[in-house]
């Protein structure tokens, strides 16, 4: 297995405490460090686990006289101190971004998240955009495909992705893209897809949007989304969507040769802000699993702000039909006790039934949290949660304490 470049990650995270010193340069440096202590029950060995984690996220700009080059990074190291899992690390991204080369080219190199209509990936590689050459701009990207399992990176040698896109530019009310995405592994081409997206504003209050992915090997649309959003006024938004998917698998997997059913769903949602104190929402989704099998999902919600510093959010969800039943609600509260002190808490209560052979079971979670801002750059977070009626723990306590420094 190929691992991430640790020689880059560790010095970066280790330098977190030196960041305040470096901000005196002419360079623009912004970001956040977060030092955290987390505890939870490890479901795999039924033992309590506690870890220290150090996050660093930064953006460094104004490096060159023309201010075209910037560096961006985000990573985490962690150390288990109770359960023997040891050291962990994850580099979310670390890339250099050079913009407006000859006023036409943007270049991004390093670990980065790339996202085309045809596919998205975390890559160790590069992305180049060609722009200002007319109403259509172009993009190409490629590199090592990075993906994670529960505890770490699972990428194998030979895992790569490449893509190209052409997209509309310069139209204030219209976005459109057509793109190509190919993923390879050791056995050959694992995915090859063409994608398209479209969004357009009409009449000042209507938005049409959609995207699709077409699988080249099975010659099927593995996704189609079409939606419309109508802004009746600034307080009322109506949304309707239709979505269908045809599950596809890596071509190098035996599962890619099996017949599958198409899935479709139609959704409608309304969001209405009654006044400064009340906002309501409601939604319904119809699910069609094929062969006359269906599901129905409902959601209703209410947000209340009785005073400026207190916000309450109530949500109710109900689903029934194929795949099981779920009936539950959530309550979240957030109170700004002082400008620097925030208190929050909430709960979720769900009654669920996975299939006709199982009875109703309930899952509950309760949480409390607080955030205290020490000054403009430093804050402390604390959060604790208890899950009840889970399979492995009668009470599943977890939590975290974080010290955050913004620079």
């Amino acid at each position, binding site marked *: 297995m190929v691992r991430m470049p640790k020689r880059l990650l560790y010095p970066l995270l280790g330098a977190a405490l030196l960041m305040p010193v470096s901000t005196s340069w002419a360079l623009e440096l912004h970001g956040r460090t977060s030092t955290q202590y987390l505890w939870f029950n490890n479901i795999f060995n039924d033992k309590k686990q506690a870890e220290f984690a150090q*996050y660093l996220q930064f953006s460094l700009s104004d490096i060159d006289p023309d201010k075209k080059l910037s560096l961006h990074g985000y990573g985490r190291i962690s150390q288990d101190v109770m359960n023997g899992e040891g050291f962990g690390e994850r580099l979310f991204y670390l890339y250099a971004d050079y913009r407006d080369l000859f006023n036409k080219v943007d270049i991004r190199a390093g670990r980065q998240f790339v996202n085309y209509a045809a596919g998205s990936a975390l890559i160790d590689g590069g992305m180049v955009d060609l722009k200002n050459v007319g109403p259509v701009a172009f993009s190409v990207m490629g590199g090592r495909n990075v993906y994670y399992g529960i505890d770490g990176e699972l990428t194998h040698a030979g895992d790569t992705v490449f893509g190209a896109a052409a997209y509309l530019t310069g139209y204030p009310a219209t976005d459109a893209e057509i793109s190509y995405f190919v993923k390879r592994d050791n056995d050959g081409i694992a995915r090859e897809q063409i994608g398209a997206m479209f969004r357009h504003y009409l009449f000042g209050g209507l938005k049409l949007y959609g995207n699709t992915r077409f699988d080249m090997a099975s010659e099927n649309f593995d996704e189609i989304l079409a939606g419309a959003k109508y802004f009746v006024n600034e307080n009322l938004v109506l949304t309707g969507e239709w979505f269908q998917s045809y599950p596809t698998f890596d071509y190098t997997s035996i599962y890619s040769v*099996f017949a599958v059913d198409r899935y479709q769903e139609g959704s409608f949602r309304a969001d209405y802000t009654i006044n400064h104190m009340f906002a309501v929402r409601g939604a319904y989704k119809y699910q069609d699993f094929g062969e006359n099998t269906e599901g129905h999902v409902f959601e209703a919600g209410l947000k209340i702000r009785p005073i400026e510093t207190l916000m309450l959010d109530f949500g109710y969800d109900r689903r029934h039909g194929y795949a099981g039943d779920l009936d539950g609600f959530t309550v979240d509260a957030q109170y700004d006790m002082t400008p620097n002190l925030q208190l929050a808490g909430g709960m979720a209560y*769900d009654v669920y039934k996975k299939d006709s052979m*199982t009875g109703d079971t309930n899952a509950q979670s309760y949480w409390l949290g607080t955030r205290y801002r020490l000054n403009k750059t430093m804050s402390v977070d604390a959060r604790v949660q208890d899950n009840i009626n889970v399979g492995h723990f009668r009470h599943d306590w977890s939590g975290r304490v974080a010290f955050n420094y913004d620079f």
Partner: protein
Amino acid sequence: MKKVFFICALLIYGLLIFNQQQSRAEKMSHKDFAKMELKDCNSCHKEQGIPLTHDNDWAGRHHQNTDWMGEHRALAGKAGTNCIECHSQSFCNDCHTGGGVDAALRTPNFKRNYMPKNHRSDFISIHPIKAKDNQQSCIRCHNQKFCSDCHARFPKGSLRIKSHNPAGPNNQIYAASNWSIDHSTEARRNLQSCQTCHPSGDVCIKCHSSGKTRPHPRNWKAGNFKDRTNGKVCVKCHLPGTY
């Protein structure tokens, strides 16, 4: 299919021409407004007749539950999108890959990774229901190996699956009377769940290899798969030279 393509292309082209007539102004940068609360964006957008990208999130502090609507997917999927003007990539990462440098107080974590809003309640218990809803939703953030990596750590037979009951010493063998009906229906609707516990497909091949029950769909494009994998996926069931 060609007709659908043609109609879509014609529709898009017509809308583009219409829009081009409406305005030739450049799309403006939003970098200077990145720190504003969403509710304050309304003042400009309403005057110019352009609806908000992020809707009327009245409190300006919580984005919509993206479990419900796929709109943000359509916009963020565009190469060169202007999300980057206000959001760093960590904003995407914190939901899609589990980072937590700026997690909201309401955001829980699974082990050291933070979970987005749509992983509600005790998600480990209710995820089988969610995973059957729309199979594409899981693989947007999780490689399929994420599922296998987790399920492989549980002893075989410890998970409860409808069609695997009730026969067998560990309740994990299909009942003979329901075999042909249940397993094919379940597999067609949610083949990814099979892959989760049987990543190599060894149990499928026992009955679906060459000369046995044909697993392929009606419009099966064998050549496409053969060409892309150099026949490696074919020889899992077929003898070389027989496919």
